[in-house]
């Protein structure tokens, strides 16, 4: 009896809130699509005992994947809690589909290497531009893709590489990539340059190498390329992008192997693709990152 009473009270409160929100003329999506059948929060095997959703991301969190000003410690450079930037926005959209409010989400700093090491994970899912591969999927669960990615190459204006128009034309240059990225694979397997490519531990080291001429071109995913060229390297230029051969490369959420959350995250992503949220978020956060010549 008591329980029923409190439930109806809560319902009344929610209704009042919804009315208030709609009356405000603000978004009414606050109540839309909370929860997916078979994905009750207590069935997801969440890390946090208090029922928060823990999302992992690497620090610093780079644009355009994460946005907002530095605010929440220890995040550097941007703030995943902001909901700004493509991956932050997608993560919150997935959380909302699963019935988590913005306040019920917490972010855990997780270096890329720790996202797939064996043992207990520090997150429910991890989102930092991790590309799916069948090999990798033996170690962790991958969700469906939330972004289909093209590799691309950044050079510097006025340098010979800036006018290259084909993959063949890139072979004679010294190229670099960040370790742990599929960009390195792309250099080795698709471009096959004459001199061995350089591999850097961090984005910063790779950008530094491009700036001081140790490498002629930096291979990164296309949205990152636009950010590198616009902000990190003053005379940077996106030389071109590459069309994948075979299956398209995709970024997926990383989950612990056998996670109960995987199927539910997939259903949340299915909904977000179907209702246009993903397309919309890509338009908001990645719109500038499309127009680069395709190198073949």
């Amino acid at each position, binding site marked *: 009896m008591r329980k029923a009473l409190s439930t109806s009270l809560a319902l009344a409160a929610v209704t009042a809130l919804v009315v208030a929100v709609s009356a405000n003329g603000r978004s009414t999506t606050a109540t839309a699509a909370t929860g997916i059948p078979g994905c009750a929060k207590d069935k997801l095997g969440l890390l946090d005992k208090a029922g928060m959703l823990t999302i992992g991301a690497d620090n610093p969190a780079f644009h355009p994947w994460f946005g907002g000003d530095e605010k929440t410690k220890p995040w550097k450079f941007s703030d995943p809690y902001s909901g700004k930037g493509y991956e932050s926005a997608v993560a919150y959209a997935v959380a909302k589909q699963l019935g988590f409010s913005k306040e019920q989400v917490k972010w855990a700093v997780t270096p*890329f*290497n720790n996202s*797939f*090491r*064996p*043992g207990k994970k520090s997150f429910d899912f991890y989102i930092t531009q991790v590309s799916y*591969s069948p*090999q*990798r999927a*033996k*170690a*962790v669960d991958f969700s469906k893709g939330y972004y289909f990615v093209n590799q691309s190459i950044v050079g510097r204006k006025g340098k010979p590489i800036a006018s290259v128009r084909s993959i063949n034309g890139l072979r004679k240059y010294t190229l*670099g990539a960040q*370790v*742990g*990225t599929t960009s*390195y*694979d792309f250099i080795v397997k698709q471009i096959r340059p004459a001199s*061995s*490519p*350089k*591999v*850097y*531990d961090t984005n910063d*080291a*790779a950008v*530094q*190498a491009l*700036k*001081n*001429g*140790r*490498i002629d071109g930096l291979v990164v995913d296309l949205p990152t390329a636009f950010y590198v060229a616009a902000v990190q390297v003053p005379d940077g230029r996106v030389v071109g992008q590459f069309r994948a051969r075979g299956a398209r490369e995709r970024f997926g959420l990383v989950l612990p192997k056998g996670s109960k959350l995987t199927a539910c995250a997939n259903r949340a992503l299915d909904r977000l693709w179907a209702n246009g949220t993903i397309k919309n978020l890509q338009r908001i956060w990645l719109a500038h990152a499309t127009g680069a010549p395709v190198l073949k």
Partner: protein
Amino acid sequence: MTARVSRETRAVAIALLSTAVLAAAIVVVATRSPGWGAFRAYFLDWAIYRDSFPEILHAFWLNVKLFLVAEVIILPAALFLAVLRSLPGPVFFPIRALAIAYADLFRGVPTILVISILGFGMPALGLSWLPQSEFFWAVVALVLVYTAYVSEVYRSGIDSVHASQDAAARSLGLSHGQSLRLVVLPQAVRRVIPPLLNDFIGLQKDTALVGTLGVVEAFKQAQIDQSATFNGTPYLVAATLFVLITIPLARFVDWLVARDKKRQQAGRAA
């Protein structure tokens, strides 16, 4: 005679038994641990080991070149530094002070920082006459750091030669330089060969730090393979290669030490 043989047999048996017990204990603890399956899948994947071996071996060649080139420079440079530090008299104070400052600085700064600062910093200066190659700056960094260590080894060797040796040489009319070259150093260097080789092994391992500059050496190649497969077995491949190259050297050092000991004891008996 028979008593001695049985004592030896017993010692061998005890050694074998205690080794077997220890090994069994480790195996039991490891395989019974809750995460053993995950551990084995992550670090002991034979197919990945086999697949990544050729590439990592190829990259390891860079490590070999690095430590060989560096060691050839370090051995004489460190000896020179040690000699500078042992120069007598107040005139040479500034040289001694500089040598001490150098050794203090480069023994104090972590090797990976020296490599990063030189490797990223020097090309960033934009001076066209400065060498740009990562290999060059990696060798410079390793030489700077290890010369500081190795000079201390030489110095301890020089200090261990009794002052009466030098005094005797000088009384025969040899100059300081001659005494050093003909009397002190030959004895000093022979005494410090084991610790010199020890530092050489340290140098071999520290070549793995050079990957931070972007060049693909064994550790970096292992990292690449690890992130491509999300499996840690490639690290085991790199570890195998480093161990394979250091073990013979380590055993050689042991042998040298044992031989020296035997000689000294024989000398005492005579």
